[in-house]
């Protein structure tokens, strides 16, 4: 039994392609059932996010299984496979395991360390479990991926720092103010960055928003959007002292806030700290403002600096994470290969036992003057013989574990002893993992 993955991601396909093959999140039953119904495919799971579409499956036939999954992906979305093929990657065995572990640990994400992907995979697995398209192998595989992702999260600092400018601003504000829930944000001017940052602050519990703009109507419109209040631009300095966090991005060509202004404002606030974020280029706020006591000023370059040093930190942490994944792959791969040999071992043992019992019964039935303890002795003798004979092949199968020859041994044993295929049972597999 093997695990295969076929998919595409932000690394291999543009958004135009990705959106064509995306699966609608609340309509997963049909694709999952179709996938699991394919010949050669035993189990199936579909991960579909805005950055990736991936199909995981377990199959006996690696090449055939992969081809069928690719065909399914193209056919389901009515795209020619020739168009899709160049964007697809596919892995099997150890590479497929590594792939999921890396994706779940957010090492393959566009922003390495971003936390959403794990939740998205959990949702995808939820669908597969709900529609019963995941079985013993994918269940184990996904749970392992979740625990690997958790290990990476707790043992490395991969997700501990902000890597977008607006998140960096929120993190800085938390280091200055601690709790943001009773803080007020003031937006000066408008702009995408400014609004995005304001949204992040609101998501982090900021209490009030004030908006000012040279065009009062625009300020009003934006204030309505954020459920805040608009302030006339001329009255800026009458209201500035009420703001703890100031986001500025006007189109002004000169500084609109100087150090003297801020000194007056901070005095009025009785030295309560203020955090100025200047996202305008050219800048709106005189850099000397940063020298005022209890005032912190960060401009776009400063924030970019924070982000790039965080990214560097993440890259270092990612190396540690790869090490963790290496360890975990070994363990899971062991389990998977034992999974393959276990039914054979079980079948071989029951075959021997069957023959022994049958022959023993025949002998005992035709033996007239069998001594009282004779049957016991015969039992002991015959089981000793079968156990001795079974010991080397059992050991060999278990030890061979991963590696190409295992299929050969399994096949040979099945033909030599005319074994039937027994489906592995979940309960007797748990003790196999080392």
């Amino acid at each position, binding site marked *: 039994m093997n695990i295969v993955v076929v998919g595409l991601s932000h690394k291999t396909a543009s958004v135009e392609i990705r959106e064509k093959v995306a699966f609608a999140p609340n309509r997963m039953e049909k694709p999952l059932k179709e996938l699991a119904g394919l010949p050669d495919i035993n189990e199936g799971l579909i991960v579909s996010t805005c950055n990736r579409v991936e199909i995981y499956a377990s199959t006996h036939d690696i090449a055939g299984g992969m081809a069928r999954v690719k065909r399914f992906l193209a056919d389901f979305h009515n795209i020619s496979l020739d168009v899709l093929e160049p964007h697809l990657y596919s892995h099997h065995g150890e590479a497929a395991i590594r792939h999921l572990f890396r994706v779940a640990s957010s090492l393959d994400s566009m922003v390495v360390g971003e936390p959403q992907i794990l939740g998205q995979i959990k949702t995808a697995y939820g669908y597969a479990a709900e529609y019963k398209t995941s079985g013993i192998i994918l269940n184990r595989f996904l749970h392992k991926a979740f625990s690997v992702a958790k290990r990476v999260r707790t043992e490395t600092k991969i997700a501990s720092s902000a890597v977008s400018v607006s998140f960096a601003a929120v993190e*800085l504000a938390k280091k200055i*103010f601690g709790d943001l829930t009773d803080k007020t944000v003031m937006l000066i001017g408008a702009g995408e960055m400014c609004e995005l940052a304001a949204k992040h602050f609101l998501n982090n519990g900021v209490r009030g928003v004030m908006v000012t703009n040279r065009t009062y109507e625009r300020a009003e419109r934006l204030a309505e959007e954020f459920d805040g209040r608009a302030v006339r631009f001329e009255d800026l300095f009458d209201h500035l002292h009420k703001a703890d966090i100031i986001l500025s991005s006007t189109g002004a060509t000169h500084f609109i806030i100087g150090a003297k202004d801020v000194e007056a404002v901070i005095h009025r*606030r009785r030295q309560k700290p203020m955090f100025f974020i200047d996202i305008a280029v050219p800048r709106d706020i005189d850099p000397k403002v940063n020298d005022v*006591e*209890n005032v912190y000023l960060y401009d776009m370059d400063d924030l970019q600096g*924070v982000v790039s040093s965080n990214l560097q930190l993440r890259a270092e942490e990612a190396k540690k994470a790869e090490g963790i994944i290496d360890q975990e792959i070994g363990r899971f791969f062991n389990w998977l290969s034992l999974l393959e040999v276990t039914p054979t071992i079980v079948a071989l043992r029951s075959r021997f036992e069957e023959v022994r019992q049958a022959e023993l019964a025949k002998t005992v039935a035709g033996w007239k003057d069998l001594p009282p303890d004779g049957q016991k002795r015969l039992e002991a003798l015959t089981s000793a013989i079968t156990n001795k004979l079974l010991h080397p092949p059992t050991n060999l199968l278990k030890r061979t574990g991963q590696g190409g020859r295992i299929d050969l041994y399994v096949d040979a044993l099945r033909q030599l002893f005319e074994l039937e295929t027994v489906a592995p049972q979940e309960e007797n597999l748990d003790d196999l993992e080392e």
Partner: protein
Amino acid sequence: MNALLFYSTLGIYCIATFIYLVYLLKPREILGRSAHWLIAAGFLIHCAFTVIRYIEAGHTPITNLHESLSFFSLAVVGVFIAFERKYHVFILGSFVTPLAFLLLLASSLHSSAIPLLPPALKSKWLLVHSSLAFLSYATFAVAFGAAIMYLIQEHFLKKKRLGPLYQKLPSLVILDEINYRCLTFGFPLLTIAIITGAIWAETAWGTYWSWDPKETWSLITWFIYAALLHGRLTTGWRGKRAAMLSIIGFCVMLFTFLGVNLLPSASLHSYDRLLGEKYR
């Protein structure tokens, strides 16, 4: 027996200090957590030592430098544990426990023989006056630790150098609040200690205030913290200014405690002279 308690406390404080300092450099939460429990265990043993010492000596064990330094250390650890519990800031330990350890180490360098008390000191006021004084010193010591942390964190934020230590230090507001809380506990304690001291002086020496160097410096310490508290409540002296004043206050306080002994003029409070030649 009691020596064993003393040295095991010293050993525990030493190890805890070491772990707290490593915690400053290595981002392992387990380090902070283990140091936290270790220092709590050390505190209990230290308490046991102090109680046994009280029983053995028959008087409050704050009469010579050995006892005072040990009691100071005990109070610092006690106040620190209370604040760490309240604010969940493990890293405060990296700045406060070294102080507690050094105080106890200094205590260990002085003779642990139980001194004979001169009649002037044999009073219930010894317990009230001295323990309150050291409790206030201890809160100022924690405020000092928080102030140092504040200045470091403020420096990082102003200079935009956001390294691993920046990540680990708590927010400015929390540090400022710890500083303030310490002050609101420590200042009343110091006030009561000075008042009880004056009452005791009246009963023992017949005068409330004799401008003895210790008394003078206590008053200076008191004025510094009074100014800080007043500035805070009226004109908003917070943040950096409060942190710096808190550090100055602590240094003056340390001088009040130890430095006065070094002054050439005799002080009635000087620990050596306190006991007098014939009592040693």
